[in-house]
């Protein structure tokens, strides 16, 4: 079976539209980050969370009113879609007190609908800032490492454009998290450790498609005149289009399965990786390669390729 056979898209011709699209995507994300900010999960915010599951269907407002009556403050949200609710409140070292308060409140007021406390998390403020700091370290270190690796493997213009594409992908997903955060009951899209893991996965994977396109361009551009670059870029991207789409496609398939089956704890992560890979595939075709093309065009110089053999 073949899906993309002998395509002939003028990707380079589309690049201005693509740049505009990317800029709008990034700008709206940034604006939302500034105006609305991000929803921080318990990992980074600190606090206590109690996950309560009821045996029968119950409305969130009913659960809330029981908690209000019992004098338990904190925010209550539907968690996933299966009669589960997440109560978040301030951190206290005594989760037991919180547990028995909640438990007693429901036992007394909702006798007909038994509940179970399936999870309690309490993260102190010092741990939260530790987690935040180590997440930042991991993110910065991996971006640096990838920059270094790509810089060694590719010429500076290719490497730079590739890393810009990575930033493009991560910032877009971050922006999406801010824009869509809290809009859906089935995925709260909170920033926590797992989202950092998603960013690192995106960063590591985003370069895959870019590398495939780059390798092909490198292979074909050797000894060619700058006037032919546009044709070569377009042809290279068309030739590799099939594998770019299919490599991303298999990963998207897996991540989609995660999103559907792995439950609410993984859903934010799966969403982030899904968007990241989608945007990463787009950016390897419409951002990374066109940036190299424009750079070469503006600098009016032929590419100086490293001595590596065409691969």
């Amino acid at each position, binding site marked *: *079976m*073949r899906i993309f056979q002998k395509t002939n898209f003028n990707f380079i011709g589309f690049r201005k539209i693509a740049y505009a699209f990317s800029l709008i995507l990034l700008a709206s994300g940034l604006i939302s980050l500034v105006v609305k900010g991000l929803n921080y999960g318990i990992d980074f915010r600190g606090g206590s969370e109690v*996950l309560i599951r009821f045996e029968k269907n119950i409305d969130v407002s009913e659960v809330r009113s029981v908690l209000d009556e*019992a*004098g338990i403050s904190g925010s209550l949200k539907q968690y996933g879609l299966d009669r589960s609710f997440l109560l978040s*409140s*301030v951190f*206290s*070292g005594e989760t*037991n*007190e*919180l547990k028995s*308060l909640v438990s007693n409140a429901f036992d007394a007021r909702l006798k007909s609908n038994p509940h179970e406390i*399936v*999870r*309690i*998390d309490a*993260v*102190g403020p*010092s741990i939260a800032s*530790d987690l935040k700091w*180590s997440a930042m370290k*991991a993110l910065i*270190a991996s971006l640096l490492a*990838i920059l270094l*690796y*790509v810089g060694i*493997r590719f010429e500076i213009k290719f490497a730079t454009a590739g890393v810009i594409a990575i930033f493009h992908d991560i910032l877009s997903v971050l922006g999406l998290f801010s824009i869509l955060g809290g809009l859906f009951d089935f995925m709260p899209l909170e920033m926590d*450790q*797992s989202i*950092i*893991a998603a960013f*690192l*996965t995106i960063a*590591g*994977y985003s*370069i*895959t498609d870019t*590398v*495939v396109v780059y*390798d092909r361009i490198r292979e074909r551009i050797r000894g060619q005149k700058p006037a032919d670059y546009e044709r070569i870029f377009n042809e290279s991207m068309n*030739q590799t289009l099939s*594998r770019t789409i*299919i*490599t991303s*496609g*298999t*990963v998207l398939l*897996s991540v989609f*399965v*995660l999103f559907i*089956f*792995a*439950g609410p*704890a*993984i859903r934010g992560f799966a969403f982030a*990786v899904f968007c990241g890979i989608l945007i990463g595939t787009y950016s390897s075709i419409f951002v990374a390669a066109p940036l190299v093309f424009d750079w070469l065009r503006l600098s009016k110089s032929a590419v100086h390729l490293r001595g*590596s053999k*065409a*691969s």
Partner: protein
Amino acid sequence: MKNKRFNLLLIALVTVVALWSLWPTWHDYSLTRELNGARSAQDSLNYAMSHRQEIESARQKSLKLGLDLRGGMHLVMEVDQIDLFEQKAWNKDAKFTAIMNSVRSKAAKSDARVLDLIVAEFKTENIRLSRYFYDIRNSDREIIAKLEKESDDALSRAKEIIRNRIDQYGVAEPVITTQGSRKIIIELPGVSDQNRVRNLLKGTAKLEFRLLRDPEVLVRTLDRINTYLVQNGTSPAPAEQDSSSLAPVEAAQPVSAAPAAPAPVPSGSVAPSTSAALPLNPAAPKSAKPLYDLIGVSENGTAFTAERSKEYVSILLKRSDIQALLPPDAELLLAAKPDVTPEGEKLYSVYLVKKSSELTGGVITEAKATFGSEGVQPEVTMSMNSEGTSKWARITGANIGKRIAIVLDGAVYSAPVVQAKIPGGNSVINGIESLEEAKDLEIVLKAGALPAPVRIIEERTVGPSLGADYIRAGMLSLSWSFLAVSIFMLVYYKKAGIAADLALVLNILIVLSVLAGFSASLSLPGIAGIVLTIGMAVDANVLIYERIREEIDAGKGLISSMELGYDRAFSSILDSHVTTMVAAFLLYTYGIGPIQGFALTLMIGTAASLFTSIVVTKEIFAFLLGRKLMSEKSFG
């Protein structure tokens, strides 16, 4: 295709090792099924008895499930370094206390190392560390080095003691590690009584034997505090309840039963009237006897406070202006357990004890929870080492007729009157509510005292039902993603897809076997990592196959197309795998807890796919080519 024999051997070896490492997991699984499938409990017990060794060894070597899948408790505890350094200091004065208080408030707000904060604080005050720490001749640097070692020692000692406590409590496969300079991470799978474990871990278990001051001194001291409170007009009524979150529900309970022993105080000076002695209403407006609204004094000169004012009294007693009113070398402590009056009121005794202890828990060699002489009251009997025994004999001999308080973590368990000299080094803690509590006391006393108090700063509890849900979700995701991806490969690449799918199976086996072999555990994020690996591992095959198709389309022969395909796709495959592995590795290095599980499986899976997707598929093709089972059409 060179090195054919070597590659085949390697593949066979990897497969065998992977299967061998996963064998106990399979064995454990089938044994467990056998056990659960038994017709009766007796059958199942018999089976377990006859196959005990087999079951145990399989379980030990099998793939461990993470805390989130099994249910259990994850705790991060912090050693209170400030307290530790305070213990190490000499001739502490008001200045020192002020400095430490300032450090305490700063440490609460920042991540900086406590020692750095202390050093900085001493610098700004322009005091040398040697004024309080170690020898006066030591330079600051020497002292910092010593304190650093002290805090490292304290951390590892605390870890050992916590491990002892957990081992004696009995948790299967606890994982206890230290992180940084003051954190201990504790993972307890399958713990059901979380509260008990929490209490077991939290207490410092600092046991002290302290002499009680005479009742007259207690009464005079209380009078003094009362007068002070009257003069300063500070009503001891508690401030508004912490409005933070969970306001206790029964804050405004009406005053209940009458006090048990509201008799006038023998010394007569501030005889509280019957009504004022115990209503103890903390919210009462300014009163002439602010303290006696909270604390009652009985005929024989013992003082007590009701359960509802206990919290407030203990805060009041910690106030520095109140402590200044106490006689030198004395401290007011509350009882650990209440005495229940016939009317059902719970009263906590208030003791005035000497600040310095006569003997500490360090001399205890053996502790045992038993029932007392009447056979109903649980107690813990303790025996001491020879040094403790002789000291204990001297102390008891010198204080016959006086009371000695047995203090654990700042709360008085009992304060018996010394009847006679105790030569055998025995002592008893009573006033314990349940046998369970006595057992826990036994555990903490045997394990020894923590070098400094510890605090729980992170706690995550997963109930077993949620764990079961996670396992189901993880298994569903794994099987669906494997099905979806492998069927896609078959449909899209036909015969070549078979090779990719076989390689994928081997890849998953390798990931699981590495986890099992290194006793790493599989968590839900770990499963997510494997699912992601499934999608990424076939990428290498996609790149190779697409290249082969291209070469075939360009008119090259099958064999040379395949050679070229593997050869030319390799660079892209390597680049993409390396970047993914770098990201996963850094995530593993800097990540904490569950994220590490994800990073680990992703890292193993990506590395393994370099082998499976390239070497393994190549050998499969070589085999098929040899049997003339491949054609140009085999790549779809």
